[in-house]
């Protein structure tokens, strides 16, 4: 039997690979965006600190801006962005 493929549509899924399920600041799942955004994805990325804790970039930046000292809210180590 011969089959002719007339057309096909590719489908892909993605997810962030984080060491946790939810952002510790906004408590939203990492696979959805922070509460200030509409769509998950590159416009609402995750960031890691040198301490290996992970947050939505918007959440951690908002927190760091409101603080005299730049510390990870999870472990209180000085916050440094881990550029990996």
């Amino acid at each position, binding site marked *: 039997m011969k089959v002719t493929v007339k057309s096909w549509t590719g489908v892909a*899924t993605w*997810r962030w690979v984080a060491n946790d*399920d939810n952002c*510790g600041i*906004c408590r939203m799942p990492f696979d959805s965006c922070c*509460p200030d955004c509409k769509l998950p994805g590159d416009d609402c990325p995750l960031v890691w600190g040198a301490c290996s804790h992970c947050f939505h970039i918007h959440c951690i930046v908002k927190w760091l801006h409101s603080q*005299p*000292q730049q*510390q990870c809210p999870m472990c209180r180590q000085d916050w440094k962005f881990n550029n990996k």
Partner: protein
Amino acid sequence: MSNTVPTSSALRALALEYKSLQEEPVEGFRVKLLGEDNLFEWEVAIFGPPDTLYQGGYFKAHMKFPPDYPYSPPSIRFLTKVWHPNVYENGDLCISILHPPVDDPQSGELPCERWNPTQSVRTVLLSVISLLNEPNTFSPANVDASVMYRRWRDSKGKDKEYENIIRKQAQVARMDAEKEGIVVPLTLEDYCIKTQVKSTTQEPQLDMTDFYDDDYDDLDTDSDEELEGGEGDGDDSGNGES
């Protein structure tokens, strides 16, 4: 930085926390909303831990959340009379975890003991429960209670004035609770029973890792039928609700 219009992030964080506390109550306290349509004011009730002066007590408090929660801390005011070094005359509770981490050398509180956005109602109330029996006498809100507490502690319980007041308040609070039809747990067993239930339901944590593995497997095998983006959507709407 505190704006008066509640942010959607505050609403969502509170809705999530409220839901999880309803589904999986934590030992030692219960929460409910003061008004059905306002997530920013909760009524919380703390059970006095068994084998302490507070045994049998049922302490009601209001918990108020700022519009920019969880970036700013909630506040707690006891409605039940509480004679405690860290509770003001009007019931306001003074505890470092509810103070924003501003630089204030006068307070004697380390920034690391203060509020941060990863704290939650659960962690705050557990701190409050442990504060009951271990007051902070460094900067007391109720100086008389603090002096009395230290006398009781330093006399190793021989000076019973503090103890008597607390036990009496706990007893009165318990009678009030009974009038409301609430049974206050008196034994450690009853007090902890919820945790035991919880530890069995904690298995989903293990499942979660499986879930991820499965997910990756699925991606490898039949990515065609994987319209599982719908899963993410499900999460989304679920959280946006209520």
